[in-house]
């Protein structure tokens, strides 16, 4: 699905990603963990096409295309989805309007006609039921006056509507109570299929218990310093990130 090679990125001359290598095969779920400030959100936003970072080296091949050459909107149309750590509020523009615009942008990109209004509403009703939101909420402004948990549910609702090939979820599980966590993990599991891949950025093992990943990677100071199977989450929970410096030295050598 996606192959990241030697990715270096900086902001205002300050290096943040310092050589990321990551392969995510079709159908796999990979988790990225790591301490605050290690570069997880930076990596996620660079994959989605955020422009404030300067890519100084490396490549990201997604479905045989160089992702770094596409704008964020084109990447979305190619099937990349980013679930935001901090979803944005857009008062006065309804969630449904945005979703319809998003779906139509994809269709236009592929040379297809706009989605039928009735089909759209049916689809929205079906998917919104999965995330425990009401249609009334969907008609409100994008994340307008939503609680933290509601915003995260809404990200999952959007993901289910847009059916991405590659979903990158940045801490979609943070700050959620157990019911909301269930909604988020069910949503992710619902999306899982042999044609779709998921990157879960998380701090917490509990999400990974609901959505068992194929691989876990640990990001530290802009590099992946350790990778392993789902059991790595237990090790990290027991030991914390204390031994990472030595790991990094080992990787660098």
């Amino acid at each position, binding site marked *: 699905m996606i192959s990241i090679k030697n990715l270096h990125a900086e902001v205002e001359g300050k290096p943040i990603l310092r050589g990321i290598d990551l392969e995510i095969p079709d159908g796999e779920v990979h988790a990225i963990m790591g301490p605050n400030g290690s570069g997880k959100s930076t990596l996620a*936003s660079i994959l*989605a*096409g*955020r*422009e*404030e970072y300067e890519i100084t080296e490396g490549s990201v091949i997604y479905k045989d295309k160089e992702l770094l050459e596409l*704008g*964020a*909107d084109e*990447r*979305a*149309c190619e099937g990349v*989805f*980013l679930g*935001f750590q*901090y*979803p*944005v509020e*857009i*008062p*006065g*523009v309804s969630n449904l*309007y*945005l*979703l319809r*615009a*998003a*779906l139509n*942008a*994809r269709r236009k*990109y592929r040379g297809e006609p706009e989605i039928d209004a009735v089909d759209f509403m049916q689809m929205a009703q079906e998917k919104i039921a999965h995330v425990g939101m009401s249609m009334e909420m969907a008609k409100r*402004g994008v994340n307008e006056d939503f609680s933290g948990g509601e915003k995260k549910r809404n990200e999952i609702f*959007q993901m289910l509507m*847009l059916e991405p090939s590659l979903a990158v979820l940045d801490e979609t599980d943070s700050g959620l109570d157990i019911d909301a966590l269930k909604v988020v993990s069910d949503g992710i599991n619902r999306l899982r299929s042999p044609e779709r891949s998921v990157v879960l950025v998380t701090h917490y093992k509990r999400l990974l218990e609901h959505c068992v990943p194929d691989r876990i990677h640990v990001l530290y100071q802009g590099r992946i310093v350790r990778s392993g199977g789902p059991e790595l989450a237990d090790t990290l929970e027991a030991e914390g990130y204390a031994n990472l410096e030595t790991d990094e030295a080992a990787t660098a050598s």
Partner: protein
Amino acid sequence: MSAVEQIEPSIDHYLAEYARVERDLPGSDESKRGRSAELARFAEAGFPNTRQEDWKYTSLAPVEKRRFELSDTPHAIGMDDIAAFLPEGLEAYRLVLVDGHFVAGLSDLDRLPEGVTVRSFAAWLNDNAGATVKAAQISEEPGSLSAMNAALFTDGAYIETAAGAVLDKPLHVISVASGAVDERMTQVRHRYVMGENSQATIVEHAIGLGDKAYFANAVTEAVMGRNAQLTRVRLQQESGRGYHVSSFFAEQRRDSRVYNHGVDLGGRLARINTNTRLVDQNAEVHFNGVYLPTGRQHIDNHTRIEHATEHSISRERYKGVLAGHGRGVFNGMILIQKDAQKTDSDLSCDALLLSDKAEVDAKPELEIYADDVTAGHGSTVGQLDEDAVFYLKSRGVDEEGARAILTYSFAKSLIEQIGMPAVARYVEAAMLVKLPGGTAFADLA
């Protein structure tokens, strides 16, 4: 030639223009004497200039250098020509002026409710020999262009509501500059006399057709009786070579309410003066405004709210969106007189810069002579939130579209306050269409 003539040759042109049309202007000989007194005042003061504090940022030199003439008759236009300016779904009476003259054939004033008079100002003047004409009956400082308008105005809307009368539908007053001939001017004047407990909603709509240069100079006066309520929506969609100046003067008696919503989308240059005096207790005023200069447009809003006596309320909120080389000016003066204790006032002005070539000067100006008042004010100038732009792009919306959607979001809450959904939708769509990439999202409205 004397030195004075060399400095102000344009004034001569308007003196001659007055002489040319005086006989045809509406009103009695008595009112013509009033007009010529105002003409003299205009001639003495001349056009406003940038040395005047109030006109610091707005130069009328392009107006002053031209020789605008009044149209003796309205250019023949049909409903088709103005259809695009009628908000879809708006049930309203309609009074149409073309090139400064009332056109009955385009108007719809059938079945007005009891106690409500809506007619051509010219016709009303001709029927009321005793009526006087002053630059502004209810303001001490109306400015030289209001004097010019008092001298030269050809027509407008005259609205009178009897005590307790309610205008059951909005009145859409459209002033069209046909743009049929180069360098024409319209001098239009409206008067609203609102009786006790009466209520009216009026949409004053200035539109320009064609691509000829013209000058539209309009004045509206509103006298608000006790507990009367006026909602006035002022939509300004002059064409690209239209120079627009308009002034609103209200005087508000006890318990009266004025809701004024300005929307400035058009014009090469527009200067709008919006004024009210709250002369009695519990009078309340709301001034809202949205302005959107793009390209090389210049839009200047000056407002003035005078709290003359105790216990009155004012709320003012302006939002500007500036794109391209657009230039915006906002000056909101709140004057709280010595006797205006317990005044409750709040003003905010926010501007959104969409381009680094655009520019805005927006400021509240408070003059407070009473000591027991609440007077809040705030002013912001900002840019679109790049996190929000990225959020929309990450969903598939292109860059321009994302910016148009967020701009809409910025202005929408204020536009909604117009209260009439059909008009709000019309304004929102007209705004989106003006924004780069916005046309694709006009259905947001």
